[in-house]
């Protein structure tokens, strides 16, 4: 009888305890995210849809070669010498006409491996993730633009600052890993060794990126005059540069691209990573 009463009381009491908990949870703030109206702020360097800036592509095909799932299709043709010379935004001359540049996002595995080898940083991952479609073929994005406006003037030589001209060759001669790296970062280049160090130091805090901004990618470290295998090979250089978080297009004019310091500055930069 005592046991029966104890059971009874325990049952009744535990029901009340449970009801108290659920009652309190009625008024607790809700965790639901009203998705289409409000969205998560994506973490920096989120890897979502790929984007390719056609005007900067030199058609080297390194991204397609790096792709583990072969979702990038490129068809190029040697640019006839009769056509006017064109350059990418970082001063790399474009020697190939890219007729087809398609990325099949339904195959893409979002590994970001294609963005590292790109010599001109024209391919990068955007924070855009809402591209669901009812048709699989609409995930095949065509990036080749027949009416693209290429730079017909090399942006490299007419430097805004006088020191740029001497700086560029010096840097080009200096680092063994990235021979032609300096031209990419023109304003940074005049900053000599002592100046380059603070530039590198100040760069990492800039990593958090607004979700709207393009994802950070290595800002043109290993730019070579031609597309050359050694450029992606110097993994030491792109790696620290990822941390700078500079948008790839700004590679030419931001001080954050201190990724190409003279040889003595490479050593302090390397342990930073």
């Amino acid at each position, binding site marked *: 009888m005592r046991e*029966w009463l104890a059971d*009874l009381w325990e*049952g009744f009491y535990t*029901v009340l305890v*449970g*009801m*108290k*908990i*659920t*009652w*309190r*949870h*009625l*008024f*607790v*703030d*809700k*965790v*639901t995210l*009203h998705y289409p109206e409000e969205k998560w702020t994506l973490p920096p360097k989120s890897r979502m849809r790929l984007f390719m800036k056609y005007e900067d592509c030199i058609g080297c095909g390194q991204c397609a070669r790096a792709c583990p799932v072969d979702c990038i299709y490129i068809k190029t043709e040697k640019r006839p010498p009769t056509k006017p010379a064109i350059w990418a935004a970082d001063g790399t001359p474009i020697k190939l006409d890219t007729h087809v540049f398609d990325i099949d996002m339904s195959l893409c595995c979002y590994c970001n491996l294609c963005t590292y080898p790109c010599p001109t940083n024209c391919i990068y991952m955007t924070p855009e993730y809402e591209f669901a479609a009812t048709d699989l073929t609409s995930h095949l994005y065509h990036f080749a633009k027949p009416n693209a406006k290429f730079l017909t003037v090399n942006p490299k030589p007419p430097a805004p600052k006088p020191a740029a001209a001497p700086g560029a060759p010096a840097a080009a001669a200096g680092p063994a890993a990235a021979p032609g790296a300096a031209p990419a970062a023109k304003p940074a280049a005049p900053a000599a060794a002592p100046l380059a160090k603070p530039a590198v130091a100040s760069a990492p805090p800039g990593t958090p990126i607004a979700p709207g901004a393009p994802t950070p990618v290595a800002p043109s470290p290993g730019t070579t005059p031609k597309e050359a295998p050694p450029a992606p090979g110097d993994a030491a250089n792109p790696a620290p540069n990822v941390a700078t978080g500079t948008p790839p297009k700004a590679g030419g004019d931001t001080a954050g691209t201190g990724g190409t310091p003279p040889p003595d500055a490479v050593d302090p930069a390397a342990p930073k990573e």
Partner: protein
Amino acid sequence: MDVLWGFLNQNVSGFSDLPGWLQTAIPAAVCGVLLITFMALGPILYVYVETKVAGFMQDRIGPKRVGPHGMLQTVADAVKLMFKEAIYPAGADKKLFIVAPCLVVLGAFMSFVVIPFGARGVTANLNVGIFYVVAVSSLSTVGLIMAGWASNNKYALFGAMRSAAQIVSYEIPAVMTLLTIVMIVGSLSLNDIAMAQAGGLHRWFLFRYFPIMPVAFLIFFTAGLAECNRAPFDIPEAESELVAGFHTEYSGFFFAMFFMAEYTEMFVISAVASVLFLGGWWAPLPALQQIGPVGLGALWLIAKAWTLVFVMMWLRWTLPRLRVDQLMHVAWKVLLPISMVLVVLVGTLIMWGPKNGFLWDPYAAWVLTVGVFLLLMYWLVAARRFSARRVREVAA
């Protein structure tokens, strides 16, 4: 219905010249249409509230896309269910298959006839009101068994058998507790029972013979919960064991009828419990009764019934489902002995003790009501503070 009949007799010329059966049938039809509208639209509200309560208790927000705050979600669901095809399983007994949901709905709806929404606001003031409610609400059990048998599905049959066992078991303690009230009032009519509770909150049967009748209320409410197959007593449709119990094979409008019956039955049980224990259409204070027009009593009853419906939902999202043996244990070894003791106690008190409750009933009633209210409010505030603290922790 009497009110309506009197109104028609006085204001409509020629009404009294009609044949007698028509004089009865017309007010009855009007009342029926009113009640059926109320009952058919009720589940739309209850399902919406249920989804919202479920969401809020799980820190979600529930439906929000269809209409303002998702209010039209259940309307959309109802429309969808109506337009869906009713599928008859192979080997099913088609006649029984169709009749079963109708019977279930009928059992739920027929109880409404005797529920008094006011001193004269009752469709049929039967002198066997409670008896009628108990009898009619058992009708849905027949419907459930028919549904389970006609479905030609072992899960459905399992569910039907469980529901039969459950309802038969829980009917007994429920009726036992009804006996106590019938003994106090001396009448089976629901209207008389409501009238006996006039005069404020402390006159409600919930607080009569203070420690005794609250227990009776708890037993009746628990048994009622089991009778409308709600969690934690929802083993007839236990989705983790039987696919959906007796309505496994039902689809489209027939499924909607089962759904409607469940929610209507919730309201019926709550309304009957409010009439029996919570004073029916009487306001908690006599002064409040004077506010508003005469028909406002119905709102008091509906408010009380909805509060109990909310408690049912609250319990559903609090408690896990019972096992079959636990269910039977609760019914036969806990509720039934207690209710029998209550019957004996109340009978003894009526015979040789105070006729209308103990002297301390009013104090106990008010202290308990105010105490429970304050406790709930305190938990509300505590929940807000808890919530704020959690937000701060997340932000930090």
